[in-house]
């Protein structure tokens, strides 16, 4: 499972147990490159809810699960932002040595394909788009 190789995966394991969240039909809301650390932050929203839904998740009808990853030592194979990032399908393969991540948009167009040596969860939880 890819989540085994992600640092700070406590929340994923807590909510999803022995499976990875499914990132098909997700949204990638941005690709952020920190030019000083060279780290890349990727934000995803998806709808594969934990089962059962955690009691403290007070979600509204527009809610999603949000996961933000910070990647280190990144090599970009493809960056193509000429396609909508929503909806997209995210594929992650991971081992001790490498994280391989691809984001496919409409018509299976490859938006992002990269390899990284380290991935850390920096944000994970539910997100209410229209909470008031």
């Amino acid at each position, binding site marked *: 499972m890819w989540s085994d190789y992600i640092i700070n995966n406590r929340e994923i394991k807590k909510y999803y147990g022995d499976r990875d969240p499914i990132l098909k039909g997700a949204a990638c809301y*941005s*690709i*952020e*490159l920190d030019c000083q650390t060279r780290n890349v932050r990727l934000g995803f929203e998806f709808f594969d809810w934990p089962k059962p839904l955690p009691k403290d998740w007070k979600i509204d009808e527009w809610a999603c699960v949000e996961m933000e990853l910070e990647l280190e030592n990144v090599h*970009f194979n493809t960056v193509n*932002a*000429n*396609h909508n*990032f929503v909806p997209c399908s995210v594929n992650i393969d991971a081992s001790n040595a490498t994280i391989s991540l691809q984001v496919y948009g409409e018509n299976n167009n490859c938006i992002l394909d990269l390899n990284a040596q380290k991935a850390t969860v920096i944000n994970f939880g539910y997100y209410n788009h229209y909470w008031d």
Partner: protein
Amino acid sequence: MWTNLLDNVCIKALYGDKVPALDNIDLVMVKIHPSYLTVQLNLFDMPAPIPKRWIEKGYNACSCTLDIYSKTNQLTYKSTNLNISQYTQMSMSISAETDGKKRVEIRDSTNNVFIDVVADGIHGMIGGINRKA
């Protein structure tokens, strides 16, 4: 002057006709999205006169953020090559296309294209920073 191509007058108001050069910039952050590209960079041409508050705070460079956006939710990325060796000593050009759109091209120190994008508009913000040598 590239400052005339921005939507707002913030940078032009600070620099007037002495436009800061874009041929030696340091990139700080780049955020890529289909409908917008946000670029944060450091500029080394200081405005003249330097604002009194900047002198008091010892600012020696400018932090500039450009929001390059599309009104139709889709920018045209002509080139995106993020695998460059260093993000310092880069150059940027901002120009107007014949159809009124704005083109922003960022190159690395060896003149390789980093990002080349065509947008509907650019919003710019600027502030002083204390950059350590």
